[in-house]
């Protein structure tokens, strides 16, 4: 059985913004973009602020779960702040995701690039962090302004994560 309301047009295009640099901040946007392509929709990903870590060559392999300031982790803040806690939580979560066949972020970015989804970095954030096009993985097509983003997103849905 499907969930689509009868008579309603299916979504044809999504523009997904990834603004956070933690593991739990990055995955949802990637899963939604990949899923959109798998359903035949056009999809573009925009990375802004700390979300840029997800496409940064050197940082992409060091994305971690936030163990402090995250009540849903169900560990006391003081414990979450101990050295190695974030690495441990990340290790446990990535192991579980691997069992569920969810790829690590670098592989996921590569796969999403192969689906034909567009990937872009936000100019204001890139300038703020003193980054350059060369700092990003090859799947990133361009560094664009907010105006470019709205032009590109026209005619589709915008999702902010």
């Amino acid at each position: 059985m499907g969930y689509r309301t009868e008579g309603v047009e299916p979504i044809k295009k999504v523009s997904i913004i990834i603004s956070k640099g933690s593991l739990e901040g990055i995955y949802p946007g990637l899963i939604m973009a990949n899923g959109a392509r798998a359903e035949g929709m056009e999809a573009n990903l925009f990375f802004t602020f700390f979300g840029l870590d997800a496409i940064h060559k050197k940082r992409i392999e060091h994305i971690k779960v936030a163990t402090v300031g995250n009540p849903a982790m169900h560990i006391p803040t003081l414990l979450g702040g101990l050295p190695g806690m974030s690495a441990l939580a990340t290790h446990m979560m990535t192991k579980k995701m691997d069992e569920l066949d969810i790829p690590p972020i670098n592989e996921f970015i590569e796969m999403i690039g192969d689906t034909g989804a567009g990937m872009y970095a936000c100019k204001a954030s890139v300038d703020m962090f003193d980054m350059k096009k060369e700092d990003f993985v090859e799947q990133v097509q361009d560094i664009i302004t907010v105006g470019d983003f709205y032009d590109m997103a026209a005619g589709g849905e915008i999702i902010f994560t």
Partner: protein
Amino acid sequence: MSTATYAGVQVRLNDEGFFEDPNEWTPEMATEMAKADGIDTLTDPHWTVINFMRKEFFEKGTGPTVRVLGKTSGVSVKDLYLLFPKGPAKMAARIAGIPKPKGCI
């Protein structure tokens, strides 16, 4: 549930157009469904994907996700999207006569 006639045979489809019973499917139906979906000719790589999906479905009870297809079918993710532009997992599963794959990735 509805019915459709492919290659001269009536089959049962669910609300989304996927086969109710994958055993009702024949390769001739796939050719006809593909054509209606904009794929004029099913090439060898198309058949590799279709056959792989059916095999996986009958072995595991659900069709493979795009990631599994890309890793194990012998056809890359990039090519999957070129072969089945309307979304490989969904479009290929429909043409292969199996239910829509359940995975999120």
